[in-house]
């Protein structure tokens, strides 16, 4: 794209509309290569199981700091408001940032967010000065309530984490986009293919966050580039204005020599 088209989140601007997770890669080096190929400005990181009280993950976190990206710590693995709030406070201290990807998980198998605990935790954390980016379902009322308590970004899922299923409920996702036109919306989780990320951007979503589809590819850096290109393409298509679909195929030039009443 030739024109500047920055992403604005909580008053900060970013060139890239691709947020990448840092877990599950074959090695820290593979993660660094993927982040570079993704051209992203923001990376997420989890710390729940890394003994954050004692900085157990320090060597690994140092690798993530090397990316030079803005860090977005998450509360992955937290199942209650209390756990999430405690971990948020710890990550604010460890990484010197009040940005937080808030996850509160209700279902252990598909890692489905707990909408009630999510809202409660978001309310508490925003009052404590956090800039909360909540990982939510695509439920309009939940997303609206998250905005009401002060979330300035909403991150609905495309599909459950790690499934690679793509945008499962496009009706809901379209409704969210239409009803929350001034809130940055980021598709978080469930994407498996670049075409799905492109589709999210074509729907008018502001950015895409993913991890597994890149980290678990046989060549993570190459897949990261594929997603980055698809996200750029989808954004450009949205800005350019997609044509409306039509019921019948219509030739773009009239068929000369055929009477119009025979042209269907």
């Amino acid at each position, binding site marked *: 794209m030739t024109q500047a088209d920055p992403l604005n989140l909580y008053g900060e601007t970013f060139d890239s509309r691709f947020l990448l997770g840092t877990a599950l890669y*074959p*090695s*820290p080096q593979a993660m660094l290569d993927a982040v570079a190929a993704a051209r992203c400005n923001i990376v997420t990181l989890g710390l729940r199981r*890394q*003994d954050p009280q004692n900085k*157990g*993950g320090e*060597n*690994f976190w140092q690798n993530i700091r090397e990316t030079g990206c803005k860090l977005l710590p998450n509360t992955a693995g937290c199942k209650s408001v209390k756990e999430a709030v405690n971990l948020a406070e710890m990550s604010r201290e460890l990484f010197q940032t009040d940005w937080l990807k808030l996850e509160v998980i209700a279902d252990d198998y598909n890692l489905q967010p707990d909408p009630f605990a999510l809202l409660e935790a978001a309310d508490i954390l925003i009052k404590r000065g956090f800039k909360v980016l909540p990982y939510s379902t695509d439920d309009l009322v939940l997303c609206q309530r998250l905005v009401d308590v002060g979330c300035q970004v909403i991150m609905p899922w495309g599909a459950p984490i790690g499934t690679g299923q793509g945008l499962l409920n496009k009706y809901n996702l379209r409704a969210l986009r239409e009803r929350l036109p001034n809130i940055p919306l980021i598709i978080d989780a469930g994407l498996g293919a670049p075409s799905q990320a492109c589709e999210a951007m074509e729907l008018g979503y502001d950015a895409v966050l993913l991890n597994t589809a890149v980290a678990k590819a*046989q060549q993570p850096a190459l897949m990261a580039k594929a997603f980055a290109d698809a996200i750029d393409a989808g954004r450009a298509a949205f800005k350019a204005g997609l044509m409306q679909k039509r019921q019948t195929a219509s030739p773009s030039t009239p068929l000369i020599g055929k009477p119009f009443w025979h042209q269907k």
Partner: protein
Amino acid sequence: MSVTPLNIAILGAGLLGQLSAWRLLKHNHRVELFEQAPRHKQHSAAWTAAAMLSPMSEVVISDRRIYDLGMRSIALWESWLSELNVLDALFQRKGSVILAHAHDENELHQFYQELNYHLGEKNNAKWLTRNELLELENDLNPEFRQAIYLPDEAHLNNRALLNTLTTFIEENAIVHWQAPVYLNEENPQLAAFDLILDCRGNGANESLANLRGVRGEVLHLHCPEVSIQRPLRLMHPRYKLYLVPRPGQHFIIGATELESSDTSPVSVQSALELCSALYTLNPAFAEARIIELDANLRPALKDNMPAIVEQKHGDTRVIAINGLYRHGYLIAPALVETLLATI
């Protein structure tokens, strides 16, 4: 091989240190082994490891180099352990089985796709039906509908192996237990040697940049009711767990993988994950006895690949081997072979 015998100091009595000591002694070098821990306090990653020799399962999560080092190492284990007449006691090559529950069967297809990606289609992996699986492992839960059999893979009885190596080395060399093994400043004990071999694993973090520990947790069990012949790996979207049989209906189940240098005891979350995986392999494991819960660190470099690095300690040549990560037993013999060729 005729070589000029060297005076070699080896730092670290984990797998790499002991294996190197043994092979260097066989090549008539003079060896002294320095270990920070006391004689009977085993806290190396090698003591915690389950010692699967699984080049195919591991290539899927690393790269071709691990497969090549692994296949070479299996051949070396067979030949080296035969010299001590302990091959049959310590080494089993019955293959291994990759499993997934019915609702996670995509994980098997993903595994197979990755295997083909790294090794091509002639990779010796074989799909098993339920009946074929039960013929191989008749104590397995019959609910598994299919599996992948990897006939080339093997496993070692690592603790018995380490004890055998310690005995051999103590008979043929000097071992300094509870010794200072630092290299970041002048270590007077190491002044008189021709060569220092740094096999300290995580202990080398003072002199090796980018070394990090990756936490792993395992359970040791005894279960007289269940008989399993070969390593089983259970594929799951988030946990990749394995069961490795030991003699006398003992089993090791592992391993978690956490990006943390935390060496505190096993967490409840990890114990739950390990136990529930175990239970689904055969519900009779519910009455198994937990003999031991162990947590330790895998020494890893940034690319999770091993490295052989030349350094200096004063004027003395130092060769550091590190970063074996989760592949210690799988690749150590091939690395020691390379080491023998370089000195």
